[in-house]
């Protein structure tokens, strides 16, 4: 197969469709990001077990925590919607239902991520209550 391809084509590695790896690649990229983010998140949640509202707000007020929370939300919802899309692709056989489901999942992921990020910023800046 590779014998028929130009050196440039081989380096780009995109095949004749010129695409198709974005989904796979973004799923892996977000997975790699989520390894340290998830470990940090679980560690933080365990440390915040039973903590009161004010203590959790103080935790968010630290830049490092707010930034990592935003990154966690972005990576989680991106990774999550890519995963759900694969499940829909596999199990929903009606083209119309499949398209509708994928649109809903992607819109919901963006909406929830945007809402969460805005919420994190508000907590970090103390614009709450």
């Amino acid at each position, binding site marked *: 197969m590779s014998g028929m391809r130009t050196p440039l084509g081989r380096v780009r590695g995109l095949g004749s469709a010129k695409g198709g790896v974005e989904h796979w690649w973004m799923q*892996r990229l977000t*997975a*790699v990001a*989520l*390894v340290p983010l*998830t*470990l940090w998140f*679980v560690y933080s949640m*365990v*440390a915040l*077990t*039973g903590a*009161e*509202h*004010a203590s*959790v*707000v103080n935790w*968010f007020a630290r830049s490092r925590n707010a930034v990592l929370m935003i990154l966690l*939300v972005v990576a*989680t*919802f991106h990774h*999550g919607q890519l*995963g*759900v899309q694969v*499940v829909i692709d596999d199990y929903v056989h009606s083209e119309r239902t499949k398209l509708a489901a994928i649109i809903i999942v992607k819109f919901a992921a963006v909406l*929830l991520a945007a*809402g*969460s990020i805005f*919420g*994190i910023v*508000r*907590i970090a800046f103390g614009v*709450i*209550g």
Partner: protein
Amino acid sequence: MTARNRPLSPHLQIYRPQLTSLLSITHRATGIALVAGAFLLVWWIAALVRGPAPFALFQHFIASFLGRLLLFGWTWALFYHLANGIRHLSWDAGWGYELESTYASGWFVVAASVVLTLVAWSVGYVMLGGHG
């Protein structure tokens, strides 16, 4: 179209379940469960924004039997998906494709997910100072 009459592969009725296939479908199942769990994360953030009373309601739910059961399940699902996800990433890198390695890493993922879940919850209960 005759597509619907074609045999499916693997045919689930005759396909003997094994560790590898069970871990594979569990990876998908935990992924779906974690997406559902993400709503808990959104609720947590929303409750924090809305103030002490809505946050107390959130904590009341989490402290309930159902809340703890769900959170325990999500903790395990998270550790399982994390550990098995790393297993997948190592396959992507070309490592561990031998049948023996696949089974060894599979059992390691099962053990790691259980141990990490129990460790996280033990520390959590210590954080509550034994009042949980």
